[in-house]
């Protein structure tokens, strides 16, 4: 099932609704990389609240997604990782280094606002 991507101001929100196949993930990565440029977005929030399993492919894809959007000028925040998923990930050594995380969508948007505004101040 493809992931719907919503545009909210200068932020793109990808809300994952159900377990994803590898193909869905790759498609999400391509789509976001494309849309970040198209909409001149400054931030991307990926909501994984609905996921109760994340594997190494998913985390690797998320990391490369974050790096890609970064190159295209948008910060990526992964939100809503469940406690059990978090424990499983660190036990597998998949700590999503380099990817920002936040508790939930609200927190993620807040964090992006802070990060982006700082960028503006800096620029």
């Amino acid at each position, binding site marked *: 099932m493809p992931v719907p991507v919503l545009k909210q101001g200068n932020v793109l929100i990808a809300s994952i609704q159900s377990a994803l196949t590898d193909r869905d993930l790759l498609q999400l990565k391509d789509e976001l990389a494309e849309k970040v440029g198209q909409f001149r977005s400054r931030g991307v929030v990926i909501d994984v609240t609905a996921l109760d399993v994340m594997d190494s492919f998913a985390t690797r894809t998320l990391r490369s997604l974050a790096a890609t959007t970064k190159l295209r000028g948008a910060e990526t925040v992964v939100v809503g990782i469940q406690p059990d*998923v978090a424990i499983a*990930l*660190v036990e597998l050594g998949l700590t999503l280094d380099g990817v920002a995380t936040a*508790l*939930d969508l609200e927190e993620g948007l807040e*964090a992006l606002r802070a*990060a982006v505004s*700082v960028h503006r101040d800096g620029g």
Partner: protein
Amino acid sequence: MPDTQSNASPSTQFGPEDLERRLSFGNIGPDDRACIEEIKDTVLDNLEEHIDAFFTHLSRHVEAQGLLRRPDIMEEARRLESEHIVAMVGGSYGQGYFEQRKRLGELYNRAQLDVALFMGAFHTQMSSIGGRIMQRYPTDSAEAFRHMIAFKKVAFFDLGILVDAMMTAREQTIRRQQEAIRELSTPALQVRERLLILPIIGLLDSFRAKQLTDGLLQAIRSHRAKVVVMDLTGVATVDSKVANHLIQTVAAARLMGATVIVTGLGAEVAQSLVTLGVDLSRLNTVGDLQGGIEEAERVLGPASPRGDRHPVSIG
């Protein structure tokens, strides 16, 4: 806590089915009951003597002082021992018999009586009773032996229940204590909005470390915490396994969008961690709890909406 022992074997449940099983294990037949009936008076005539045999054996061992020095427990123990012997030759081995044995086992457990010492005392008591049985059949040793064996069957049946009762009571005590320690061990305290303090006191083992991780992650979600100060002042030793677990906890908390600040690593703990070669570079450590809270305030505070240890500090 009856439902915490879901993995206990049914033999320690002391229900009617268990009683039936035990009776069939013990193999006490009608012949045996007849024999017991026959020697009943012999045993009961010297009841005090048999009880004394039990407690005299105990009094010779310092390990039994916990029981012997407590007059209240002693009184009950003597009374129950007396009922015990009366019931052994009573011929009726039903639920009441069972309950009485269980009570006695629990009492001895409460008095912290060593099981091996109890067995010794029990045997002394059996010898005392056996002596009287032998006296009853001075010329017919075969007959004396037959009666003794019948009595012994009951005694072994009895011993099985008593020891199980003692063990079960002991396990329950241990479980209760573990539960209490567990509940005490990892409170997550909210100091201000978005800030949790996790004081860890005492020995950290892998089990507790895992529980700590689970508890912390749940607390992060329910309190919507952004910063957690994990205070290890009360932890005397940390081994490499636990240190790795702490690192995992910190990583898992970050995945949920929270920063963990570790405080109160003592000099010895710090040295041993460095000696062990545990990679703590990813831990955000501050000297003491006060410093940790100050650091947390800095991360959270409006004056610095984006501290350099902020969870969403990017680039």
